[in-house]
């Protein structure tokens, strides 16, 4: 690292913030783009599993709430890709890389949704896992990203409530409805435990060194378990991990080792729904390329 880069890193570690036009080391910029782009990709891909249930929502209220939730996610993608674009990578290039598999999106969005139970469990637990990471990003050294995280976190707060409302209604309903929730938890638990990534000590994580991330992966997972396992158990529902327990002395949750191979396999585009969803995106993107040409290129 050059002297200027070292000085920059010290500045960040002292709490310094960076704006779009500031000088920044190539490595910092590259890491930012990759990280933020993956976030944008995830918001955009996360829409697809939920989209089908908008059409099948069983009440007008649920239909409106789910449409609004998904709308928020598209809105988040817009905010996020704008930040990436200002860092030097155009939106169209991000979308090209997403569709071709060059760039990635979070594991949870590579899996199928099978029932209305999934709708509740995703909005409640998957969004909860995501919000924990997102709250930590409020302290990102790159200020434009930290600022959009405020709006994102604010909007996500309704998503969890909506999810919880759906789940509680099901849990208070028929045995079959309760069954939908339990079955969904059983299927989503594995991906949820993988969501925050392999434990890497904060001291060894370059993303923390550059103050892009401020929370270690394992801390995020512990926060998730601490917040949400009690909420699951209090409804009389179970978590499909016999080893899951909290050590009351240390406050640490113990659990079965997540399948890190599965995580790697899935995020590299081999999940059950990865290709189908990317193909779906590609199809509409290609089909409507003329619209972007007609509307977004300079005025006739």
């Amino acid at each position, binding site marked *: 690292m050059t002297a200027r880069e070292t000085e920059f890193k010290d500045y960040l570690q002292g709490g310094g913030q960076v704006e779009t*036009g500031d000088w920044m080391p190539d490595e910092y910029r590259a890491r930012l783009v990759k990280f933020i782009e993956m976030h944008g990709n995830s918001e955009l891909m996360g829409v697809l599993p939920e989209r089908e249930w908008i059409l099948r929502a069983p009440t007008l209220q649920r239909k409106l709430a789910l449409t609004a939730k998904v*709308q928020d996610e598209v*809105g988040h993608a*817009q*905010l996020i890709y*704008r930040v990436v674009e*200002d860092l030097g990578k155009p*939106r169209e290039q991000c979308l090209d890389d997403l569709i071709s598999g060059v760039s990635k999106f979070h594991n949870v969005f590579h899996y199928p949704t099978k029932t209305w139970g999934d709708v509740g469990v995703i909005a409640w637990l998957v969004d909860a896992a995501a919000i924990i990471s997102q709250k930590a990003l409020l302290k990102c050294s790159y200020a434009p990203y930290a*600022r*959009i995280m405020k*709006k994102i976190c604010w909007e996500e707060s309704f998503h969890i409530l909506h999810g919880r409302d759906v789940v509680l209604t099901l849990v208070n309903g028929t045995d079959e409805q309760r069954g939908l929730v339990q079955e969904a938890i059983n299927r989503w638990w594995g991906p949820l435990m993988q969501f925050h990534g392999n434990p890497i000590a904060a001291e060894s994580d370059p993303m923390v060194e550059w103050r892009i991330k401020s929370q270690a992966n394992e801390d995020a997972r512990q926060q998730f378990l601490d917040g949400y396992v009690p909420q699951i158990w209090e409804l009389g529902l179970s978590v499909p991990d016999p080893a899951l327990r909290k050590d009351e002395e240390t406050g640490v949750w113990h659990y079965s080792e997540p399948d890190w191979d599965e995580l790697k396999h899935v995020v590299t585009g081999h999940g059950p729904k990865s290709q189908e969803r990317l193909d779906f995106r590609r199809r509409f993107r290609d089909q409507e390329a003329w619209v972007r040409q007609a*509307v*977004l290129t300079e*005025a006739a």
Partner: protein
Amino acid sequence: MIYEVFRQERKGQAFQHAGSITAPNDAFAEAYAREQYGRRQESEALWLVARTALREIHDFPDELQKSYHRVDGYSLKAKLKEARERAGTTAPADR
């Protein structure tokens, strides 16, 4: 085109930069800004400006001792002590 969006959260507050959107012209920009920053009635008002119309200034030279027009340019402790001694008075807190 990129439009910058400024929003006022409540009447009386300053407009703050909220983000930016891509739109081909003012009509589209208004529609999109309204939805991105106001669909929950979370903004009192929005300002929209084409990014090309914004001018940015970063650089404010302070080379030659301009503390004369700042509060930190005025240290009155010593002079006040001398004036009180001359007048035989004490600091207000002592009486």
